[in-house]
């Protein structure tokens, strides 16, 4: 290595001068190094592979719910539990076999108790058969999966227009945070093929119709039913294409199901050191959410065939957009904040909501029932009820003390300022034990989107043991 004469001369001067006081100060850092025996090679290289991998945990949750009296629109579900307890065994297992073949299983068994339900009822046991599929890699970077697969898309946090397989997939939840809701959902029976190349990928998924659509409420079989009437009630197809272009990580999607076709696009881009901007759009021809909900209710027998469609409901099929635009910001103190705007063009307008509250309050019980049904339908589809809303979320990792995570989120209606909010604290007691506390509330006036819910607040405590 060549070094200039001046470099060597300067180095010589430094050496002749001897160690400076700065050096002694540098050595103070050594006093902070703990006196310890490092991990041995055997300890550190254990269980790092994925050839045989299991993730198993037990979860106990106890929830208390507070209720409102004098609802503007009476809820047809008069008997809801005030106290619920649930114990869950959650298992995810993966095995690699020869010739690029592997198997994945994801399942959850819930044992529930509610103060309005006898423990001997079959509905107190429910098994969520989330995933079970084989993966084959016939040639490098080409994958074929077959079975029940949880295929997820979308870059946003509070609302994912391009997550086309999200509909009717949610099962029991402890934490209402959208980032946690996805942890426990049903996959779709499908064949999925994907090809990856250096800076992109293409995928094709087809999920056949295996059962008639199951009703939305009341007769969920629970037990060990795989609930294919939720996830495979129609032939479903998704085509996706991802290609890195200018740090935007674009992903284009095409989805088709029965008489519905949707196009989708995901984009994300870093802005400076602390911000990620992202956007997610889907669009296609469809009727309004109310018209779709009522039609679904009639088709599955939950609503009478003579059920009226509210005058304000738009049953005409037209091109409608879903959009989530947002950004995340991370500060130096391990705080991350997300802010998103959600557009759901098929949702209720301000006038729709106001008129419906007014007519239901005037004593039209069938419309009241439909309002609650439409709400349940929107939640089941994981779509907003109204057209415009804001989503805010803040997360603080290692808050105050290490391993304590504090988070809060709010869905805020842009029509009336009402909100669904949750404050959460989770703490990792050790590598194997975690606990969480979740306090949620529906805030707003009696005739507001969120203030009209019968549940005013809830408190849930959770303990998890990982194995």
């Amino acid at each position, binding site marked *: *290595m*060549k070094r*200039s*004469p*001046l*470099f060597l001369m*300067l180095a010589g001067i430094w*050496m002749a001068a001897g160690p*400076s006081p700065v050096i002694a100060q540098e*050595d103070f*850092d*050594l006093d*902070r*190094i*703990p*006196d*310890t025996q*490092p*991990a041995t*090679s055997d300890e*550190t*290289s254990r*269980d*790092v*592979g*994925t*050839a045989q*991998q299991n*993730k198993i*945990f037990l979860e106990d949750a106890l929830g208390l719910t507070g209720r409102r009296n004098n609802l503007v629109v009476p809820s047809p579900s008069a008997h809801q539990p005030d106290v619920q307890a649930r114990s869950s065994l959650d298992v995810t297992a993966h095995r690699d076999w020869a010739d690029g073949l592997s198997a994945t299983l994801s399942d959850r068994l819930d044992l529930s108790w509610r103060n309005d339900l006898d423990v001997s009822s079959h509905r107190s046991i429910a098994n969520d058969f989330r995933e079970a599929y084989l993966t084959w890699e016939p040639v490098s*970077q080409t*994958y074929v999966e077959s079975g029940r697969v949880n295929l*997820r898309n979308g870059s946003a946090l509070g609302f994912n227009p391009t997550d086309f397989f999200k509909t009717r997939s949610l099962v029991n939840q402890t934490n209402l945070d959208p980032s*946690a809701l*996805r*942890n426990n959902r049903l996959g779709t029976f499908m064949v999925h093929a*994907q090809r*990856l190349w*250096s800076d*992109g*990928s293409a*995928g094709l998924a087809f999920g056949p119709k295996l059962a008639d659509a199951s009703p939305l409420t009341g007769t969920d079989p629970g037990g060990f039913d795989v609930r294919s009437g939720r996830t495979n009630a129609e032939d479903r197809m998704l085509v996706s294409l*991802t290609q*890195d272009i200018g*740090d935007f990580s674009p992903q284009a999607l095409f989805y088709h199901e029965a008489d519905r076709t949707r196009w989708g696009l995901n984009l994300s881009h870093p802005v*400076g050191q*602390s911000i*990620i901007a992202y956007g997610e759009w889907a669009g296609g021809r469809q009727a309004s959410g109310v018209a779709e909900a009522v039609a679904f209710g009639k088709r599955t027998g939950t609503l009478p065939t003579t059920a009226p469609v509210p005058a304000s409901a738009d049953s005409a099929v037209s091109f409608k957009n879903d959009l989530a635009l947002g950004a*995340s910001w*991370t500060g*130096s103190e*391990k705080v*991350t904040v997300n802010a998103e705007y959600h557009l759901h063009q098929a949702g209720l307008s301000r006038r729709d909501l106001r008129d419906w509250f007014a007519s239901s309050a005037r004593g039209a019980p069938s419309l009241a029932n439909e309002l609650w049904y439409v709400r349940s339908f929107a939640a089941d589809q994981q779509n907003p009820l109204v057209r415009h809303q804001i989503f805010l979320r803040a997360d603080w*990792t290692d808050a105050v003390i*290490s*391993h304590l995570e504090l988070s809060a989120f709010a869905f805020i209606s842009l029509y009336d300022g009402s909100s669904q909010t949750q404050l959460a604290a989770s703490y990792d007691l050790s*590598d*194997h034990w975690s606990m969480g506390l979740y306090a949620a509330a529906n805030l707003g006036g009696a005739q507001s989107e969120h203030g009209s819910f019968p549940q005013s607040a809830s408190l849930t405590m959770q303990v998890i043991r*990982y*194995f």
Partner: protein
Amino acid sequence: MVLALLLVTGTAQAQTAQELVTASDAVRNPGHPFRLTNTLAEYVGGKPRDKVVLVVFAREDKSTRQFSNLVRYAEPARDQGKLVLLDGAKMWFYDPASKASIRISPQQRLIGQASNGDVVSVNLARDYQASLTGTETLQDADRQPRDCWHLDLAASTADAIYSRIEYWIEKGSNRPVKGKFYSDSGRLLKIAYYRKYETQLEGVRPTETIIIDAVDPNLVTIMTMTDYRFQDIPDAWFQRDFLPRLRVEE
């Protein structure tokens, strides 16, 4: 003429300092794609508190000399299977429980133990402009005196994680001995000591890095690198859609 001479020799000196950093980078990082197991033991007040085990896949882009990393959590059990992709401006976090791939910012990269990888497999010569501060006899992590070049590294690309690094490289061997990493505001963030040099992947490399948190004076992380292997890592691995596909052989 004196000014011209100073300019010329100054440039030569800077180039030489840069060469030292390049040589030191080669000591830490093999020239071919590789994987290793990184065990991070966290100590608070000198007492062990946490252990995280990561499997790190690293590959240098020969044209840009930038390292790309795939980091997979093997322990603790609650984080098993989570992945972090670090590839220039492309940074993603993947959680197998939710199947969610979330794009993360450079600032988010600094949250979590995976961030400590940036004092391991990174080409400092690529992202920093080095200048010689002087030579010093410095005690290494085992309190052995080492004759070192003391260099000052200033961020020169947008990819640089730290604004400034003080770096001590042992004369002759070009082994890194110590680094001090600073934020944009000049705040000292972490201090790193490199030790336990062993022959791994065709070179003598530090298999242990001690990271002293300069913000929390009680916090020290010891990173132990084991199970070094050369590994074929295709381009297709460094993208969001590959993350659910990563399989780690025993």
